[in-house]
C-alpha cells in the first residue's frame, strides 16, 4: 500500500495581469542596476543622487536599529487573510526574507519556535 508524497502546495501559476519579474523580489533588487530611481534617469544629477543615497542610508539604518530593538520583545504581526499573531522576536535573516520567532501564539495553539515569512507580513508593532 503506497502513500503519495505530501506536497506543501502546488507551484504558483502565472499572474493573469502581468508578465511577472517582480521588482520587489530580492533577486531583482540585487541584480537590476537601476534600483535607485534617480540613477535610473539617464542624466543623473550627482547632487540629487547623493541626497537620495543619504536618505536611503538613514532609512536603512533606522530599519536595522528597529530590528535590533525588537530583539526578545513580544511583537504583534498583522498578516494577509486577516491573520494576527503575536510572538517573541528572535532575529531576521540577512535579506529580511524570514523572521525567527519563539512562542508564536496562533488561534490553534502556541508554536515554540517558528519562522515567519516576511512577504506574508503586512505590518508589525511592538512596545519599545
Amino acid at each position: 500500500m503506497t502513500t503519495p508524497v505530501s506536497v506543501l502546495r502546488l507551484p504558483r501559476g502565472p499572474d493573469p495581469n502581468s508578465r511577472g519579474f517582480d521588482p520587489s523580489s530580492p533577486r531583482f533588487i540585487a541584480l537590476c542596476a537601476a534600483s535607485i530611481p534617480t540613477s535610473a534617469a539617464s542624466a543623473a544629477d550627482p547632487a540629487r543622487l547623493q541626497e537620495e543615497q543619504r536618505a536611503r542610508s538613514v532609512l536603512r539604518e533606522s530599519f536595522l536599529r528597529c530590528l535590533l530593538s525588537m530583539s526578545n520583545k513580544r511583537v504583534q504581526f498583522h498578516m494577509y487573510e486577516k491573520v494576527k499573531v503575536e510572538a517573541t522576536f528572535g532575529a531576521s535573516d540577512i535579506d529580511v526574507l524570514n523572521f525567527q520567532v519563539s512562542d508564536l501564539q496562533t488561534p490553534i495553539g502556541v508554536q515554540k519556535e517558528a519562522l515567519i515569512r516576511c512577504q506574508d507580513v503586512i505590518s508589525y508593532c511592538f512596545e519599545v
Partner: protein
Amino acid sequence: MAMRQTPLTCSGHTRPVVDLAFSGITPYGYFLISACKDGKPMLRQGDTGDWIGTFLGHKGAVWGATLNTDATKAATAAADFTAKVWDAVSGDEVLTLAHKHIVKSVSFTQDSNCLLTGGNDKVLRIYDLSKPEAAPLEIPGHTSAIKKALWCNGDQQILSAAEDKTIRLWDRTSMEAVKTLSFDTSVSSMEYVADGEILVITYGKTIAFYNALSLDLIKTVEAPASINSASLHPEKDFFVAGGDDFKLYKYDYSTKEELESYKGHFGPVHCVRFSPDGELYASGSEDGTLRLWQTAVGKTYGLWKCVLPGNAQILRFPTQDSPEIKA
C-alpha cells in the same frame, strides 16, 4: 512505508512545451525556462516550479530556450525567424537576432559572451553578444534543418544534430567538422554533460551515451516506447527518459536496468532534464504542462514534504494567493 511519486504540475502554457533548460545554481537558487508553441517562454523557480515571469515578444512558436549559468540572461529560438536574448532578471528583451528561417536551438558559452544558434536554414551561427551589430560567424555543412546545437569541450567545439540524420562535432576556430556520426533515423534529442564529457542522444526507442570528445559509443539502452528526450543525473547514477507513450522512465546508468516508470502527462513527453543539483527532473509535454519529479521519492525538498507518521504537521500561514487546482 513505500512512497508514491507526486509530480508537481506547472500550468500556464496553452500549447505544447517543446524544450526546457535549467540554469546553474545561483545565490537565489536555480531556474527553469520553458519553450512553448504558444510563443511565450516562461521562467520558473527551479526547485518549486513557481512562475517568475513570461518573456513577451516572439511572434511565433518558441522551439528552443536556454539560460546562462547564473540565470541573468535567457535566449530563445522561434518560428518567427528570430532568436532573442533577454534579461532574465527584469524580463526585458535585450537583443533580436534575425535569421533566414525558423530558429530551433540556442546555446550560451560559459562566459555568456557568445550565442550559438541553429535552425531550418541549416547553418550554425555564432554571435558575439558584446558586438551585436557585427555579422555572426557562419558554419554551413548540414544538409537538413538543424534541431539542436550545443557548445562543448570548454566552448572550443560545437555539437550539432540535424534532420540529415547526422551529429557533427565542429571545431570553433577552424569552423570545420572534425567528426560525424550517422544514424538510420533522425536524432530526437541531445544533451551534453560537461563534467565527464558525455553526450546523451535519443533516437527511435534508443537512449545512447557517447564520449563527447571522441564521439565513441559508451553504451545504448532500449526503452519500451519511442523516446523524445533523455537526461543524465549529474552524479551519473541515473538517467531519465520520456517519449510518445506519455510516461517518464528512470534507469540505473551503470546497470541499464529500468528502475521506475511514471504516468502523469496527458500527451507525449517532448523534453526532460535533471536539475543542476540532481534532486528533481522536469518534463515538458504536448499537454502544455511541465511536471517536476523527485529523484529520491519521499525526500523533503522544495514543495515535497516528508511527513513521518505521528509527527505534527508544520504550521502554515495562508498567503494571499491560494493554490489553484487545475484538472
